[in-house]
């Protein structure tokens, strides 16, 4: 006998912080992450019958949020081009945020960045991450391994640069 899917309300409360954390890792901006998470959860509510059956509803919601952010960025780029307007750079980052790490993640290739956000920030299992990304678990494992290597190198380089400055 299969367990019945959770109610949207229960799932929403437990999944929201993890989805938002992943989106914050992808965007580096708390406000944008919240907006994208809200939007993604609205979509999840609209399609809950189907989303609830998915292997990783949280993974799906993160991908939806990520696409929302992309769309928003496209819009900003168009506005910049048309209006000659450069928006203020005022990323809203939480207290205690590991800025160095987040900036290193931002410089990772897109697929590695997504894998890190899903697995580490949203705390999804390798299987759930694989389901959300549409790849095999082996691919997720190797992508995460490469990402960690890249991050280690970047963080080391950053440490060295700091030491040299001092």
């Amino acid at each position, binding site marked *: 006998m299969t367990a019945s899917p959770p109610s949207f309300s229960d799932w929403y409360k437990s999944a929201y912080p993890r989805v938002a954390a992943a989106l914050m890792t992808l965007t580096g901006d708390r406000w944008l992450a919240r907006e994208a998470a809200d939007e993604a959860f609205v979509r999840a509510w609209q399609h809950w019958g189907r989303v609830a059956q998915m292997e990783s509803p949280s993974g799906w919601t993160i991908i939806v949020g990520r*696409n929302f952010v992309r*769309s928003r960025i496209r819009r900003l780029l168009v506005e910049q081009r048309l209006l000659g307007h450069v928006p203020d750079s005022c990323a809203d980052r939480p207290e205690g945020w590991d800025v160095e790490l987040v900036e290193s993640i931002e410089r990772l290739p897109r697929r590695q960045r997504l894998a890190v956000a899903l697995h580490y920030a949203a705390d999804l299992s390798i299987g759930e991450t694989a389901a959300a990304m549409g790849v095999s678990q082996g691919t997720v494992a190797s992508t995460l391994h490469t990402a960690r290597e890249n991050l280690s190198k970047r963080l080391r380089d950053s440490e060295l640069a700091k030491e040299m400055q001092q």
Partner: protein
Amino acid sequence: MKDAEERLAQLGRLEPIEAGPVQAIEERGRKRSVHRRRIEVGAAVVSAICLFGAGSLLIGGAGHKNGLLLGSDSGAGYSTTTLPAYPSGCRAAPGGSTNGTSGDTSESQQAVAIVRQATGENPAHAQGNACSIDLELSFGFVECFSGSVDVSGLVAPREGDTSLSGLPVNMLGRLSKRDLVEVTVVLPGPMESVYCVVTVDTTSTSRVATSELVNVAVRLLQSGPLHPS
């Protein structure tokens, strides 16, 4: 490496963003559904799909009382009158450029032109021209990605996935494993119309047969959530 791993493990544990009231999410979803239903039952509903991307591939269609009305851009290299597997219930946009629009270079211009082709000459809609004027003003990348757009959350289709309102999208999975975005544009104007736009990143799929994309668009038009009433 260990340092990176330890620091990564802290991601998401700092000052978590807590969920707001679930009622707010439900209310937003409900309003959107109501709005969509209201539009769907209107007499002047038109839905169209454009596929466009770096591969200069664009096809579009509009709901029509007798079926679907399709148009294509010139870059697609085919004519709507010579679609390889022309689906029943569909026909090419009458008059104008049945070989596709021409002279438009940007994708946004193509998007406007193709929907105009499909809707502006649609005899089922007396105010079709007014509709196309609205489109011309507000349907390009500018508006498309600024303000009046609702990007629905149907993304990353994969083999066997049944996103897009239950539509089997295994064909889409072959086209692009990522970056499929469905965009719904609600246009103001004398005719309240709904346009459904699908962008596909064709940079990696330029060798995909045009006919497959045509079939995808047709199936979306026929089965999508904004199918004309």
